[in-house]
């Protein structure tokens, strides 16, 4: 009995001391372990800032989506999970294989998103069966949503999951990356990614042993990323995008004073929403196989010989350099022999006697061969560069291309050969080495239209940054009106003699509004809508003598051999405000392939000018 009692006492003492050890000595340790059990935190990916057009229409917005996340290490049996999932949500063999492949690349404690766009019925069903499936969690989140017509797909770009390349290249993405966070892949989404991402929030839940959330204990809302307003007019953007249907090309419209890009469309377009939740292989293949290359942002990344649209610049350059006078007359006979080669005019029979004005108006190649021969490539190249060719317009877009403005130096550096004089002639009609983007052509036209001042095109509307530019213009207009010569204008002049600019304007007026003008058939006659423009037809290959003899028409050629149709213009003629460039790949002649489209866009832009004016400071206000 005694032994037993001692034994009992000893056992009870050990139990009490064990209780003391656990509950008093080690209390803090176990308390934190209990909290670790009980509490689980989730980073909430912040809402991305939205992108609006000039009038506040959301071009890229956020919508609520239902997602299914999984933590691989919490899943006891993957096969079983997949089997169960297949009965609840749309989860076929294909998705299973993809997920298994993704799983191999991930750490077991990293959340993996099984589906980021569940339907409501799938989502509610999932929540119902949650207690019997371990390791998964349904999540309500927001996702990017773009306008379905894709009119702004190229300029806005799209977001998608961060790739290993994104993580490697951007420290910002590396730091903030979390499951469900999308990063901008191109366009404005990429450019403004860091500012639009916002700050992640935190959600602390009490969870039970099966990972089911019982109670939300703490919620720190993430901070939504910055919203951006662009200079784009979404209405005209949609309108222009429709005009490009069936074509491959680009349309740019720019405010010639502020540099605001009003329209920037590329055709054909695509639905950027498909990329947000991971594009399917089929859709991807379709985009890649399409010979009209829908993914390329043609206004910025498409390179085309400017063709005759460069003639106003060549003319201006010759006038500014006093190489020719406006009264120079040259006879066009359809072709001319220079340096042992025959050079042709687009008009086989020839234009007859041409003045400079007529040569611009009717786009006479023979005349410009002679002008460029006298001018020389380097002086021509200098003016072209001054007016915006050969360098990036928006700079910050990494998909943007800078194009080529050839010069003797350029050829030596890039091709390693010296310049042939014959190359000057074809450069004078915008062929040869010349390569430009539609956006560059638009800027070139804008800077010509505004009287020859340098402008800085912009697509993000920043009223604060715009104010000094507005002030500079107001000062300039005031001084011009009162014939004052201000010593220090804030605007950079690109010309020497204002008469030369005026002359080119007038010649361009003739090209659109006088009979025989190349774009006469696409003119607008309503007062206030009259515009001036220059057509361009750029060859994508050399026309052989055989073809010339057979008089093969452009439309008889196969698609990829047809000429590019180009058109640049500014409107209205009397009080210019907008510049436009239209490029239709393999669209035939500029007068028939591009000018009719430009005409419709110009009309639309001018129609909406009154509305747009209400949203901006008046440039012409008296100072």
């Amino acid at each position, binding site marked *: 009995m005694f032994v037993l009692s001692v034994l009992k006492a000893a*056992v009870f003492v050990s139990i009490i001391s064990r209780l003391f050890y656990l509950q008093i000595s080690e209390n803090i340790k176990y308390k934190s372990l209990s909290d670790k059990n009980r509490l689980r935190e989730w980073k909430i990916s912040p809402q991305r800032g939205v992108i609006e057009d000039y009038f506040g229409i959301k071009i890229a917005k956020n919508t609520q989506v239902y997602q299914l996340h999984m933590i691989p290490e919490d899943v006891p049996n993957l096969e079983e999970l997949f089997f169960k999932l297949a009965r609840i949500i749309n989860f076929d063999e294909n998705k299973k294989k993809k997920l298994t492949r993704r799983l191999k690349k991930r750490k077991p404690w990293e959340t993996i998103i099984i589906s980021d766009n569940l339907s409501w019925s799938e989502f509610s069903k999932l929540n119902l069966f949650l207690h019997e499936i371990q390791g998964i969690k349904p999540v309500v989140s927001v996702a990017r949503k773009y306008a379905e017509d894709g009119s702004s797909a190229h300029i806005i770009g799209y977001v998608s999951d961060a790739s290993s390349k994104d993580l490697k290249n951007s420290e910002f993405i590396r730091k903030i990356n979390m499951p469900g966070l999308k990063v901008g892949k191109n366009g404005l989404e990429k450019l403004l990614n860091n500012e639009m991402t916002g700050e992640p929030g935190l959600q602390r839940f009490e969870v039970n042993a099966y990972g089911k959330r019982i109670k939300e204990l703490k919620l720190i809302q993430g901070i939504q990323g910055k919203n951006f307003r662009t200079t784009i007019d979404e209405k005209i953007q949609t309108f222009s995008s429709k005009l490009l249907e069936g074509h491959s090309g680009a349309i740019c419209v720019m405010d010639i004073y502020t540099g605001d890009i009003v329209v920037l469309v590329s055709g054909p377009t695509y639905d950027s929403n498909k990329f947000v939740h991971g594009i399917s292989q089929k859709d991807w293949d379709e985009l890649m196989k399409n010979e009209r290359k829908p993914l390329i942002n043609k206004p910025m990344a498409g390179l085309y010989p400017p063709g005759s649209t460069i003639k106003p610049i060549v003319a201006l350059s010759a006038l500014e350099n006093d190489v020719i006078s406006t009264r120079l007359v040259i006879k066009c006979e359809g072709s001319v022999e220079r340096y042992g080669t025959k050079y042709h005019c687009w008009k086989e029979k020839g234009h007859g006697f041409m003045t400079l004005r007529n040569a611009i108006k009717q786009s006479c190649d023979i005349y410009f061969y002679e002008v460029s021969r006298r001018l020389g490539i380097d002086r021509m190249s200098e003016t072209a560069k001054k007016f915006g060719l050969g360098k990036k317009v928006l700079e910050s877009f990494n998909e943007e291309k800078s194009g080529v403005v050839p010069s003797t130096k350029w050829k030596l550096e890039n091709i390693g050969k010296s310049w042939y004089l014959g190359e000057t002639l074809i450069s004078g009609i915008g062929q040869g080495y010349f390569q430009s983007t539609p956006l560059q052509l638009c800027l070139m036209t804008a800077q010509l239209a505004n009287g020859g001042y340098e402008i800085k095109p912009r697509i993000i509307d920043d009223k604060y940054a715009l104010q000094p530019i507005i002030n500079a213009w107001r000062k300039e207009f005031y001084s011009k009106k009162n014939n004052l010569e201000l010593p220090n204008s804030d605007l950079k002049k690109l010309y020497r003699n204002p008469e030369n600019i005026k002359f080119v304007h007038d010649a361009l007026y003739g090209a659109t509004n006088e009979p025989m003008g190349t774009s006469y058939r696409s003119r607008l006659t309503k007062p206030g809508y009259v515009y001036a423009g220059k057509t361009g037809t750029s060859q994508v290959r050399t026309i052989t003598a055989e073809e010339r003899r057979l008089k093969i028409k452009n439309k008889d050629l196969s698609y990829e051999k047809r000429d590019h149709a180009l058109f640049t213009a500014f409107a209205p003629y009397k009080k210019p405000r907008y510049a436009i460039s239209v490029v239709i790949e393999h669209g035939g002649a500029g007068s028939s392939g591009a000018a009719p489209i430009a005409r419709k866009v110009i009309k639309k832009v001018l129609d909406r000018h009154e509305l747009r004016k209400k949203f901006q400071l008046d440039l012409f206000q008296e100072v």
Partner: protein
Amino acid sequence: MSANYFIRGNKNIKDKILSLDFFLILLVIALGTISVFAMYSSEQGKFGYYTQNHLYRLLTFFGVFLLCSFFSIQFWFKSSYIFYFLIVILLLAVHFNGVTASGSQRWINLFFINLQPSELMKVALIVFLARYYYKIPSENVTNIKHIFIPVFALIVPALLVVSQPDLGTALLIMIGGIAVIWLSGFKIKYFLYSFFILVCSLPVVISFLKPYQKSRILTFLNPERDPLGAGYQIIQSKIAVGSGGIFGKGFLKGSQSYLDYLPEKHTDFIFTLFSEEFGFIGSIILLTIFILIIYRVIAIGNISKNNFSKLYCYSFATAFFVYVAVNMSMVLGLMPIVGAPLPIMSYGGSSMFSIMIGLGIAMSCKIYNTETPT
């Protein structure tokens, strides 16, 4: 000697009631009340299935406890062998036609109740051995002819229970039986010899264990070995108890049990739940109630005039102590998990039934303490 006397003894009803151990009754009521609250908490503050069943059983078996008290000690003495053989038969019935749940066949369907005879055997074996040793003078206990029957009576039910399989209950049955043998005056040195033999045979025994039993032992030695598998229960139980602190998290506020981290929270781990919500102080109070119950049963043994009552009370108190100690040590991580309920606190009809009968017999010893069974 009439049948009436056989059952009711020589006291009238008033004397019987007056000679009840009211302190023991109070302790049982206190324990019962606490257990109902604990059960209520285990169902997240709902008067649900487990709480209701537990309460009804408690009320019924409390009646059984009082009823058993009024049966004369003569009755218990005389019916002890029948009682034992009846349970052995029930164990055999379980073996051949039992109800299986979670992999082991422990219950028998008696139409109105699913009975677990192994639990009843805990008390039946003690009563059986107490009677067996009653007539044997303590100096003859070690005699070889008096060893055979007790060991056989102990081994047969233990083997039947092990085969269910239910190692925990089998061990508890054996410990109860060994307690009687020890208290009957068996020499301590023989226990030491057999303990030595047991240790030597341990490797052989281990090789016969089921994989889950092996893993339980290994897990006990190092719970972090498999934190999501076999070690899960013990780790979560320690977290629950430890996070309770001095005063506990408060009634219905035990997050470990509320959020289902605690396994088997109405049965084997009910003490963990209680300890998490009422802390160190609550646990000490609960432990004190158990100690007082054991003390009262020993006290009854002390005032009993006959050896049957004495041997029974001491043995039952020891067995009761072992049940409490094993359960608590197990949930506090001092022992491998063997599956032993905490008397009265744990959910489970047969266990409570058995404990109440055991206490009832002890109470009968109190009422009839001056009598000598023949």
